[in-house]
């Protein structure tokens, strides 16, 4: 592996480190707010990956300069980065906040119903509820429920 290859790809690997940190929070932490934060970190790391694909070395932001009369003048010397990933990620950020707010609303509802936002506690409550239901209806089903 040459140094050139390393420098040309190390940014992708750094995004993957961030992505996996977010993923780790989602799978290993039981608190729902923390899970949402982890999901956001994962999502932002994906955004960075997309934006870095659109970057051109020596490029600048894709906005054309205007002169004093407000006329756009095109200078073929200027290199611009790819504007298409920017547009896609703008849409993704707004959709991301929509899904985040829906998730947070669900957390508030879960807290109202179970009085906790820890996954472990909720699993325990669910198991106790299933057990109680079994005890109540089990004999009527001939002990098969």
């Amino acid at each position, binding site marked *: 592996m040459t140094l*050139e*290859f390393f420098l040309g*790809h190390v*940014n*992708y690997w750094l995004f*993957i*480190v*961030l992505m*996996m940190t*977010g*993923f*780790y929070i989602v799978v*290993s*932490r*039981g608190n729902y*707010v*923390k899970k949402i*934060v982890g999901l*956001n*970190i994962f999502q*932002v790391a994906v*955004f*960075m990956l997309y*934006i*870095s*694909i*659109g*970057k*051109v*070395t020596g*490029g600048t*932001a894709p*906005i054309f300069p205007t002169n004093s009369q407000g006329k756009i003048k*095109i200078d073929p010397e200027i*290199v*611009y*980065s790819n*504007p*298409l990933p920017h*547009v896609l990620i*703008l*849409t993704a*950020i*707004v959709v*991301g*906040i*929509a899904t*985040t*707010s*829906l998730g*947070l*609303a*669900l957390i*508030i*509802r879960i*807290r*109202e119903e179970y009085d906790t936002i*820890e996954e*472990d*506690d909720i699993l325990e409550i669910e198991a106790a509820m299933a057990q109680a239901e079994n005890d109540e209806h089990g004999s009527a089903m001939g002990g098969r429920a």
Partner: protein
Amino acid sequence: MTETIINVILFTMLVTTAFAIVRMTRLFAVVMLSGVFSLLTAMLFVTLDAVDVAFTEAAVGAGISTVLMLGTIALTSRSTKPSTRSNALPLLLVTLTGAVLVYGTLDMPTFGDPNAPAQTHLAPHYLNESITEIDVPNVVTSILASYRGFDTLGETAVVFAAGIGVLLILSGLRRRREEEEEDES
């Protein structure tokens, strides 16, 4: 060269913030750090020439989502229970997924390569023709509002649906609370 140094510093701060979020048990600190994370991301977007995205990320990621999360922890709880589960399985899963993703990047074009497939297909058309076709100096604006206008319409529909969903989930929250208090008293 300066850009590389700035990127490395920003990345160190991003990774530190993310690791701190993993370890924190107070949710207020977690939410604030996620706002910090979004602001650092916005800075990184500026160095990657995506000024419009940086602007949106700073406003939406660091602003609105932090406020929403603060509202949520005010309505639920302020701290998390320390995790009792073993960390071995999640770590293994994360390492495996990361390794597969790294394997996938080996074929990717070099960072900043002007001849990468992403740069040669649609972008030249937008950069060369949008002035005559749309006449807006900001190419991102002309793509967002004109070339891909239906995309933006779909995005608006998603936000509308999410807003309706939040309203439906939370409707009657105060009414149910008051009924509960009446029952207790």
